[in-house]
Each structure stands twice: as structure tokens, then as C-alpha cells.
């Protein structure tokens, strides 16, 4: 079976590292973007199967990135899982255009289940 790719976008390296470790252990290919113009850093030759996106990024609102992905012809089908430590985030993530949400801090079981769920959707 071909390995699925998860794109992690977060401005906190510690979290990225931990989640990357977890996901690679679980058998995913993990791409990481931690700064800059997030959406343009994407590897067009190897598009991810799921994007795991932090909502509050330094210098950029997660919602803008969702918009960028969802308006691009080649990326708009990719499910985006939004995550945030913001106490109110779970109340307004639906309007952001993301496909799912998980609050920080999260249980790894819940996270793995969520990613699994969305990866399965993109399988042919």
C-alpha cells in the first residue's frame, strides 16, 4: 500500500517535531512547513493527502491559508484539519472552510483517528 502524505503547518517547531514523530511512526509521510508564505511552499509534484493546519500562525491567519488551498485547482480537494489552542476556536472553525477541527492539546489516539478518517476519504 502506498504511504499517505500529511502536510503539517505550524509555527511551533516543538509541536511539529512531536507530531511528525508520531505520524511517521504511524506510517505516514510527513511534510512540514513552519514559516513564510505557507501555501506557496507546497511541493506541487507531491501533493499531500491531508493538511494538518494550525489556526493562529505568526504573521498569517490559518483561514487565509485555507482559502489559498481551497481556491487552487490542484489542492482544493485536499481535506484540511484545523487545530488551535484558542479557547473559542471550536466555535467558529466551521466558517473557516476547513474540513475538521481538533483542539490543542489533543490526544494522539483522537488525532490519529481523525487523520485516518480523512485520508481514507481521499483514497481512490
Amino acid at each position, binding site marked *: 500500500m502506498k504511504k499517505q502524505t500529511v502536510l503539517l503547518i505550524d509555527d*511551533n517547531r*516543538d509541536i511539529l517535531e*512531536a507530531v511528525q514523530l508520531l505520524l511517521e511512526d504511524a506510517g505516514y509521510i510527513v511534510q512540514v512547513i513552519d514559516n513564510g508564505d505557507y501555501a506557496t511552499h507546497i511541493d506541487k509534484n507531491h501533493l499531500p493527502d491531508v493538511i494538518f493546519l494550525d489556526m493562529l500562525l505568526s504573521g498569517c491567519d490559518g483561514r487565509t491559508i485555507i482559502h489559498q488551498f481551497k481556491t487552487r485547482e490542484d489542492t482544493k480537494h485536499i481535506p484540511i484539519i484545523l487545530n*488551535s*489552542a484558542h*479557547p*473559542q476556536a471550536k466555535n467558529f472553525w466551521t466558517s473557516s472552510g476547513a474540513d475538521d477541527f481538533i483542539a490543542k492539546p*489533543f490526544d494522539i489516539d483522537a488525532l490519529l483517528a481523525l487523520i485516518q478518517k480523512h485520508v481514507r476519504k481521499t483514497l481512490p
Partner: protein
Amino acid sequence: MKFLSFSFFTRKRDIQKKKRSLLFTKFFEKTTRKYNHQMPNRSIWWKLMQYLLAIALSILAVNVKLSFDPVLGKDAPFVFLFTAVLISGWFGGFGPAITATICCDLAAIFFFLPAFSPLHIERALYPSLIFLAEGVFMAILLEIRLRNMLSLKARVQQQAVIAQIGQYALASQNMQTLFEKTAELITSTLQVKYCEILELLPGKKSFILRGGKGWQEDLTGQGLVSGEEHSQAGYTLLANEPVIVKNLQKEKRFFSSELLTKHRITSGITVIIPGRRAPFGVLGIFSQKKRAFTQDDMYFLQAVANILATATERKGSETTLRETQNRFKRLFDSNIIGAFIAEFNGKFLEANDALLSLIGYSRDELREGKIHRDNLTAPEYYNLSEKAVRDLRTKGISDVYEKEYINKNGKRIPVLIAVSRVDTKSNLCVGFALDISKQKELERRKDEFISIASHELKTPVTSLKVLTQFLKQKFTATDQHDTRTYLEKMDKQVTKLTDLINDLLDITKIQAGQLKLHNELFNLTDLLRETVEDVQALTATHTIKLRSLVKDAVLADRDRIGQVITNLLTNAIKYSPKGNDIIVSAKTGDDDVHISVEDFGMGITEENQQRIFEQFYRVNEKNDATYPGLGMGLFISREIIKRHHGTISVESQVGKGSMFSFSLPLPEKFYEKANSTSY
């Protein structure tokens, strides 16, 4: 014996004489009682002149009669002689009239009758006696006329004086001048030398001489007279009626005051100057000579006192009014807070500088009527303004509410505002507006801080949690039992840390008034089941039983209600350490749903039941073991339930267990309650 009888006789004659003179005076007093005024004190020369006039008139009359005798005959009527009596009496009264009568009678006997002829004794005597009698009668009538005339004159004069004082009191701005003027007028009218206007000092123990006439000059403004009943003024107040004193030395009702003794006062009248609450003081007139003041003098004086009372009263109210006005003007102009007076329709009539600078308009623009609520208020707050006007019409006062003004430059300024109707008849209101830009900015920053802080705190926790759980997973696979147990404990601590961070954030938000609810319709029983399952998963010692009869959906913040139930369940577990059943039940009432969490643990004392919902309060008894926690859970729960317009309470018995219950309004009642509760 003879001597005795003689002396007795003399005494009797004396008494009779006195009686006669008394009778005589009484007669005049009675006939002229209606206008019984003190006769004006004429000088002795004036009286002498009147007697001389009477004699001269008599001589003139006799001569005239003599010159007319050849024409009219010797027995011609005595009309000329009577004319002399009449004229003398007309101006001089009884004395001059009698004088004229006697003179004329004597002249008649001498000239017209053969006085010394014994043959004609009857002819001479009878006409003479008749003339005398007629003269006396005429003299009496003329005396009465004169007295009445003078009384009337005096009365007219007194009334004129009262009118004058009244006018003066109306025009006068200065009470002292009014007092001096009044003293001047009444002393000249009543022809006395002394007049006192005493003001009763607070405490009613003494009077101060506010004005008057005749006294030593330095006494005005001080001259303390005792207010006790043993002084004349004090007695007047006590008796509550005017007091007439004929002879102060012989007075038995009270003692003469120092002021009166010093000026050798004998007679006088004192009347009360009334006041609305307590008498203002006493008005008095006095004379050194002994004098019988009459009732009419007293009435006159009382009339004057009443005018003074009205004037002082008015002056007092004017002063009070001015003081009150000044105070309120100060309140308005102090510019501590924006204040305005506006019509209900929104037109601003008055505004203080604070308000004008807040909204950026000039005073001229205010005068031109250019300031209107609708121009000032940001459109989204129109409904609040309209509600305020409705409140004004119904309750007379609006709630304090927040809205935004748009100032002249178009800048929005958050204000705290309240209006109150000026009075029940007018459509005017007075309002206050407080600029709360700074508070709003602080609130915004605090909000921002909360977001950042929560983000920053949760970020390391997130990676910690991921790593711990990842490790735990690894070691579960490799069968390293001890390591796995430790990691499990670590994971639990991380969860606790997360909960603490969330609690702290909640408290901060509650204090900032920013605990926002995201209400939705959801199935309560589902939520209860999920929560019970989650909590049950964490405890092996307790069994949580759910008995929910609620089928309806509730309108609430699902996560927040879940938080409350979780909190109650964890408390129930924490405080029933022996491990027992915990019963969660829910049922629907008329207006709301009731949810309760019951444990069979240690229970809570009466005193603590009152306080456990307080912020940071922890049950902390000497004999009890202490339990971990910050004491925030129940406080947060209460705040969450309060914001849902529900109630939360506890019933407990020490040693038997506790039951925490809360209620949530049914969706159809939710908005009804929301309107009636405020927090």
C-alpha cells in the same frame, strides 16, 4: 370718733371723685371704642392756643350779637354764641367748647340780662342755665367727634404704613435695611421711641437684636436677650400671643431684660414674628413713659410682624433656592462626566463642556439646535436609544447602557449612558454620558492577552502530551510495564495541567465579563451520556448511574454545560473517597430542566454550603484531609449556569453525601428569562 368719721367721709368722697373721673373716661372710651387709638400727643402750646381761640371766638360772637341786637331785638336767638362753642369744640374738643360756653354765658348774663336785679332773677337764671346745659351737651358731642376723627386718621395712617412696609418688603433685597426702615416707620406711627426686632437663634435659648430703633448703636447685631420664658420676648413666644405691658416694673409674668432695663423702659408691646417651622423672633415697641397701649396698637404691630415674617421666609427660600441651584449647576458644570438635557425626540437643549468635547460640537451648534441623538448615535444602537425613551415614558428612568457616539469627525466613541426624566409632566430628560474608550481598549487588550496566553500555555502542553502519549504507546508495545505506568501518570498530569489552564482562562474571562456562550439546540440526555462515559473512563472506584427522563432539546452552550457536568462529577468522585455510586438524574419541569449529581460521600457542612460557589473557596477543615484543586470549579460552574439564566444549588448532609442540582430554562422560556435577568 368724730375724727374717724371725718376721715372716713373724706376717703369716701375721694373714692367717689375717682369713680366719677373713671366713669367719665370710660364713657369716652366706650363711645369711641371702635377706633380706640392713642390720642396724638399735642404740645401744651397747641392746647393753650385752642383755649385762647375759644375765648376769642366767644368775644367775637358776643360782639356780633350786640351789633345785630338793634335789628333782631334783645331776645334774638343765641345762634351766634352757639357758633362760637361749635367752632371751638370742633377743633379743640371738650375743653375749649366748655370754655367758650362759659365765656358766652357770662357775657350774656352781663350784657343781655339785668343780672343784679332781684326782680328779674328768674329771667336771667333760667336762660343762663339752659345755655350752659346745651353748651355742655354740645361739648361732649364735639369731643366724641374729635376723638373718632383722630382715631380714624391714626388708623388710616397705620394702614398706609403697613402698605408701605409691605411694598418695601417686596422690593427689599437686604433684610437689614428692611428692619431699619420698618423700625423707623412704626416708631413714628405709634409715637414711641424704641423698637426691637429680635431673631430667635437656633437652640431657642436666646435672641439676637437684628434691628430696631432707639437702642445704643453698638447693640444691633448682638444684644442677646434670653429666650427663656422669664424675659418678655421669651414669654411672648411661650404664651404664643402678643403681650401688652403697661408697667414693666410691676410686671409679674416675667422679668425685664437687660436691654429694656438699661433703657428705662416702662411700657411696651411684643408680638411674635412667625416662621414656617419655628417663629423667626419677636417684634416689640417700647416707651419710657408709662402708656396704655391698646388692642389696635397690638393688631397693627402684629400686621407688621407678619409682613416681616413673609419677607424673611421669602428671603430664606430664595437663599436656599439659589444655593440649591448653584449646587446643581456645579454638578452639571463640573465636567467630571458628560451631562445634557434633551427632549424625548432627541434634540439636545443643554450640554456641559465635557459632553461637547466628547462629541466634538461647539456651544454655538448646541444653541442652534444642531445636536440630535440620531446624528450622534451609531445606527446599530438606535434600538437601544428607543428602548431608553420607552423606559423614560414608563419608568421615568432608563437603565444604564452602552452605546457608541459618532462624534463630529466621524470617530466612534463608546459611552456608558443613562437618562432620567426631568419631571413627570415634561418631555425632557437629563442624561449622563461617560466616555469608556479607555475601558473598552483595556478590555480589548485583555481579551487579546487571554487569547495569546492560552495559545502560548497550551503549545508546550500540546507537544508534551503528544510525546508522552507516543512514548506510552511505544512502551505498551514493548511490554515494559513500569515505564508504561509512569508514563500514564505523566499523561494524567498533563491532562490536569490542561484543565487548570482552561479553568484559569475561564476565570479571567468571567472577571472580564467575557464568558461568551455559543448557544445551540442539543439533546441533553446525549450530552449527559457522553460526559458520564468520559468521566467513568477515568475512575475505576466509582459507578456513575444516569437516569435521564429528558427528551427535549435544550438551548445552551453544549461544551459549557458539559464542563459543568464534568466538574460536578469529578467533585463527586473526589469527595466520596470510599467509592460509591454516583447518580446523575435529569427531568423536565414547567419552565426548565433540572439536572442533579448525587454522591454518597462525606457531605458538606451548612456553613460551607453557603460558600462553596464563591471564587477560590475551598472546603478546608482542620480534621479533614485536604483535596487538591484551586477552588475554581464550582465558581465557574455557577457563572456558566447564571449566564444560561439558570440556577445552581446544593443540598448536603455531613457523612451522608451531597446533591448538586442545576436548572436550565426550556428553549421557549430562554429569551423570556434573558430579558428579566441582568448581570
